[in-house]
């Protein structure tokens, strides 16, 4: 499914908000959305929420033979999946350009910066090494999947434990989790990305854009950095022109953000370790916030609208009297009527076209209760395809007027008395037309 295009007024609205340094969710320019990290019961499984954006990372490993060019190094593999689950705009199966770019960025960010010690993943040089595979799935897309994915990948890698192995001569023994405690990976550092979105030809920038902001932005700069203030990857893309000091400023902001994020990840990891030690329940289901109904009734929120009302009164006072317009309804033919005296209705060619039999019958036995019922149904019919829905007749309790006096012989006027009779039976009449 193709993504629905953004309407111009939405675009203008967001751009205006950015210009006035306001964001729709009340954040400041350099603020991240709320980051929440939850770990699964298994090692190496982690869900990261960044506002409404949510990604899942799962690390797994297996023994493989190494690449011939690097016989004593383990293999790291990253895969970011953008499935239609996250957003209907993502296609199933085939990788889009965006997905490929993100995958490459992940690789560049985590693999080329050597965040994980690959040499410690070697079992027998040239024969057996660990392949550590990180699969990241986007569960919900509300902008800035990249940052969330990188956080998830880092957290999952840090959380992961691989089975222990021992080598005796040529023999490799693989211990199951029950036999021996699995060992964590050696993590050198945590490269985290900060995404900057640029607006108004690079004059405005935002950190952690939401989906709406992402769709409006002109370009973005991605800075990957670790807490030692080392840049691990840098990528400006999307057709913006930047000045050198803009880049430097961004890297400065990123260094602050990365410290905060590292702190959050570390704390989440510690909490998880603590929870496991104490034997508390852990896992994704546990970590989801429980939404319970705690009150039985809803209280009305008190809204002070004095000011608004006063201003409205002022406006009304100042306003000119609207020109007198007559809300006359002209009946132009069967199923066709016109409000006011605008252009001549061209829908009906012959003004003196004979009425349908049903209607004529109806005109004959007016006053009859049956007739009113029929008429009510007639109104329903009319409302389906006539130009003007003649609802006014219900509002005026005294006179039900289907057509205007211009066509004298068609006039159906029910007296107030008749209607009173009807109104007692009103509830019995199957009414699909809303009474007002």
């Amino acid at each position: 499914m193709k993504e629905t295009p953004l309407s111009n007024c939405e675009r203008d609205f967001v751009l205006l908000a950015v210009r006035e340094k306001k964001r729709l969710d009340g954040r400041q320019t350099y603020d991240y959305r709320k980051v929440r990290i939850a770990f699964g019961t298994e090692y190496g499984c982690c869900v990261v929420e960044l506002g409404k954006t949510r990604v899942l990372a799962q690390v797994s490993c297996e023994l493989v033979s190494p690449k011939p060019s690097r016989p004593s190094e383990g293999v790291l593999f990253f895969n970011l999946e953008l499935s239609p689950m996250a957003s209907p705009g993502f296609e199933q199966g085939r990788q889009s350009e965006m997905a490929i770019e993100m995958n490459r960025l992940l690789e560049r960010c985590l693999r080329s910066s050597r965040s994980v010690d690959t040499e410690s993943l070697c079992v027998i040089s040239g024969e057996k090494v660990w392949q550590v595979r990180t699969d990241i799935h986007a569960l919900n897309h509300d902008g800035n999947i990249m940052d969330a994915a990188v956080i998830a990948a880092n957290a999952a890698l840090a959380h992961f434990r691989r089975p222990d192995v021992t080598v005796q001569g040529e023999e490799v023994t693989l211990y199951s989790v029950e036999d021996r405690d699995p060992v964590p990976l050696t993590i050198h550092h945590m490269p985290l990305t900060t995404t900057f979105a640029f607006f108004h030809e690079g004059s405005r920038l935002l950190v952690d854009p939401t989906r709406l902001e992402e769709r409006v932005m002109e370009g973005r700069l991605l800075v990957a950095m670790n807490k030692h203030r080392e840049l691990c990857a840098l990528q400006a893309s999307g057709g913006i022109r930047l000045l050198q000091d803009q880049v430097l400023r961004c890297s400065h902001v990123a260094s602050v953000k990365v410290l905060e994020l590292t702190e959050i990840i570390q704390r989440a990891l510690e909490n998880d370790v603590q929870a496991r030690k104490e034997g508390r329940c852990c896992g994704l289901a546990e970590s989801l916030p429980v939404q319970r109904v705690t009150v039985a009734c809803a209280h009305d929120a008190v809204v002070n609208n004095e000011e608004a009302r006063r201003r409205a009164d002022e406006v009304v006072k100042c306003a000119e009297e609207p020109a007198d317009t007559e809300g006359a309804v002209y009946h132009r033919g069967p199923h066709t009527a016109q409000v006011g005296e605008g252009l001549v209705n061209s829908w009906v060619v012959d003004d003196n076209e004979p009425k349908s039999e049903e209607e004529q019958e109806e005109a004959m036995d007016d006053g009859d209760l049956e007739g009113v019922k029929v008429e009510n149904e007639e109104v329903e019919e009319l409302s389906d395809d006539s130009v003007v829905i003649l609802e006014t007749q219900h509002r005026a309790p005294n006179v039900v007027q289907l057509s205007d006096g211009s066509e004298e012989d068609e006039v159906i006027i029910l007296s107030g008395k008749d209607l009173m009779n009807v109104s007692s039976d009103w509830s019995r009449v199957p009414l699909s037309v809303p009474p007002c």
Partner: protein
Amino acid sequence: MAGVELLSDQGYRVDGRRASELRRVQCRLGVLGQADGSALLQLGNTRALAVVSGPHEIRGSKSKALHDRAVVNCQYSMATFSTAERKRRPHGDRKSIEMSLHLRQTFETAILTQLFPRSQIDIFVQILKSDGGNYCVCVNAATMALVDAGIPLQDYVCACSVGFVDETPLVDVCYAEEAAGGPVMAVALLPRSEQVAFLSLDSRLHEDHLSGVMKAATVACRDLHAVLSRIVKETLQEATAGE
């Protein structure tokens, strides 16, 4: 990082250059007669052929057309024989698609696309010989091809890669320096306004060194711009003198 000394004590690099020295640039415009614009550019041992066609009607599905500007379409491919180890596929792998995407993003900023609504500009770049700095050579070659095709540009787009070894930025890194695993930054610059059209960095670099590396890249791009514009002028002079 083992073994090779990338920067000797005397300040020379593995191929005998100084730290801020570019490799030799050779370029010829209009090498292919059929295309609207073409250029063959060689930077040291890296050689790229760029072909530009357009602006022309959108090919394929018309839904790609943009009502207010031209679509820029890039394809990057590497000849199977361009690297020391034979490549299996010339294009279509992740790296080539990423490179195509980067090229497209770079040139979308530089080409005055708003002048050609509902049309398409194709840029095809082929690496014939690879010795480091593929992205940069591609950008420079594509710029020259665009100039040859007469497509209005904001400015020349000059790209240069910069490495960083022993506290010194190394300009225009070759394959040996790239493969050593140090940080490499590729910058595409519009030299007149000194605006960065594209930026990418691999591997670790301390933030404090960022400004130094960027400055070196800016200077290198400006040098390249001087060389490229001289080549264009010479080509023009030859063409007009011939008539």
